[in-house]
């Protein structure tokens, strides 16, 4: 594929007229391409796959692998995508890795401004605030036609100490649920997670062990089916005791027996 967007062409001037740069201030295209609008990120480069999150009665369990893919090449295997913000909030990021790193810096600055500068001890930065803030950041960027190419899950606690779990994507769309996943996980993992928590309110019936088990199962299914996923991942548990990181967790109980029966995808002729 030719990765230069300027080579992808644009509608012909005869049909649509010249590009109107005045619209949405889309002016600053480089001089040599002035028939084009200004263009920003068109595609992610180094990517990462699903983040999973599930509420249980005392908190939240999250998981994400440590892989950074360059196309189909598994390029980096040491990327920690579940990041702690403030004292009791974890933000899980999937999508473009450089944009994730930018988010990391933005969140570091947020933490500095809210907690380090606050010598009155009045600014308790918690998950709902981090979530609202991130949704503003992502929506602002997409409104500038320059999105941060990520899907994000924010986990933590509400003011009343109930678990908080909400999603934001690169368009600024947000929603909350007791079971959440980004990327491929939203197709493959969410149905598994919802078996444990059919309705949002039901998370109160789920124990930490059950939550961890379904996350482990989902990570295994994702590793089976998602070619951009990896075998080692990080598992985070948030509860009243704090935030616990289990790093270098392996996908367990694998059985590739089913693989021989897979047909299609060009792997095997019928």
């Amino acid at each position, binding site marked *: 594929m030719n990765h230069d967007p300027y080579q992808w062409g644009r509608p012909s001037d005869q049909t649509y007229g010249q590009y109107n740069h005045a619209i949405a201030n889309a002016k600053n295209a480089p001089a040599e391409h002035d028939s084009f609008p200004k263009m920003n990120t068109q595609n992610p480069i180094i990517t990462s796959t699903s983040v999973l999150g599930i509420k249980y009665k005392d908190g939240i369990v999250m998981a994400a692998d440590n892989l950074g893919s360059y196309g189909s090449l598994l390029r980096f295997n040491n990327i920690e995508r579940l990041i702690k913000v403030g004292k009791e909030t974890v933000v899980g990021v999937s999508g473009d890795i450089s944009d994730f790193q930018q988010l990391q810096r933005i969140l570091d600055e947020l933490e500095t401004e809210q907690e380090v500068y*606050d010598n*009155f*001890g*009045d*600014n*308790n930065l918690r998950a*709902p*605030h981090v*979530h*609202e*803030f991130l949704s*503003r950041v992502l929506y602002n960027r997409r409104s500038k036609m320059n999105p941060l190419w990520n899907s994000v899950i924010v986990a933590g606690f509400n*003011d009343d100490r109930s678990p908080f779990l909400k999603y934001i994507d690169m368009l600024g769309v947000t929603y909350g649920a007791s079971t959440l996943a980004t990327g491929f996980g939203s197709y493959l993992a969410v149905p598994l997670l919802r078996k444990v928590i059919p309705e949002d309110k039901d998370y109160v019936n789920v124990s930490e062990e059950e939550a961890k088990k379904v996350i482990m199962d989902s990570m295994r299914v994702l590793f089976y089916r998602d070619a951009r996923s990896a075998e080692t991942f990080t598992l985070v548990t948030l509860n009243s005791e704090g935030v616990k990181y289990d790093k270098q967790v392996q996908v367990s109980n694998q059985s590739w027996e089913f693989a021989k029966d897979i047909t299609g995808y060009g792997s095997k002729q019928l």
Partner: protein
Amino acid sequence: MFRNNYDNDSVTYSPTGRLFQVEYALEAIKQGSAAVGVASKTHVVLVGLKRNAEELGSYQKKLIKIDNHMGVALAGLAPDARVLTNFLRKQAMNSKLVFNRPLSTSSAVLSIADKAQENTQSYGSRPYGVGLLVSGYDETGSHLYEFQPSGSVLEYYGASIGARSQAARTYLEKNLEKIRESASMEELIVHGLNALRDTLSQDVELTFKNTSVSVVGKDTNFTVYEDEDVQQWLDKLDSVTNSSNRNDEDEEEDAGAAAEAEGNDAGNQDTTEDRMETDE
């Protein structure tokens, strides 16, 4: 050489390190009518004494709402207060928009403190000429702050600003324990009004026309009581006149302007450092 050469602007220190323009701005607060704030563990009450410039004119506003959980009382230049409260309202809305949470009282006051400081360090702008009492109820409970044009901000259990406010402070200091232990918002309002009452000059008494009351606190949005609505609170007072006038032994209050100046001096002394003054 009697003229003070060091008081023309806020970018000149006197040989003793004082900033006269800033100190004069603090005097502007005392030109305004009094406002008193008191804080219990659950509520903060602000009360203000309103003036009307002429019989047919309306009374000047003393209390301004910032958000559901925050409001201020002012003494001094009301237009300056409008500028500052407008800024505070913007901060409050921004906090809701960006973080989905109410602005903390401390962030609010510090933001205007930093704004005020800028005006004391550069030529061409004057310091603000208004003092504010900022009341707020947030995650960390009830808070009462005093803001000054010098850019100083301090948290108090009870505070008063404006004309003859020293008298109110005396009441507050004497009744600090009771104020802190106030079980109900009614009790707290009565303490606030008692303190305000002590700032009255001899021929004036608290009426529903010249008194404003506000309260904010636990499960209580910032609420302002004006006009007829104030009467219910005045009814709870044992008297609506100044206690020192009732005892008719007030050598201080009678002397008018001279006494005022004396009161001011006392006021300056007990808060030396934070009022941007450094006495020898």
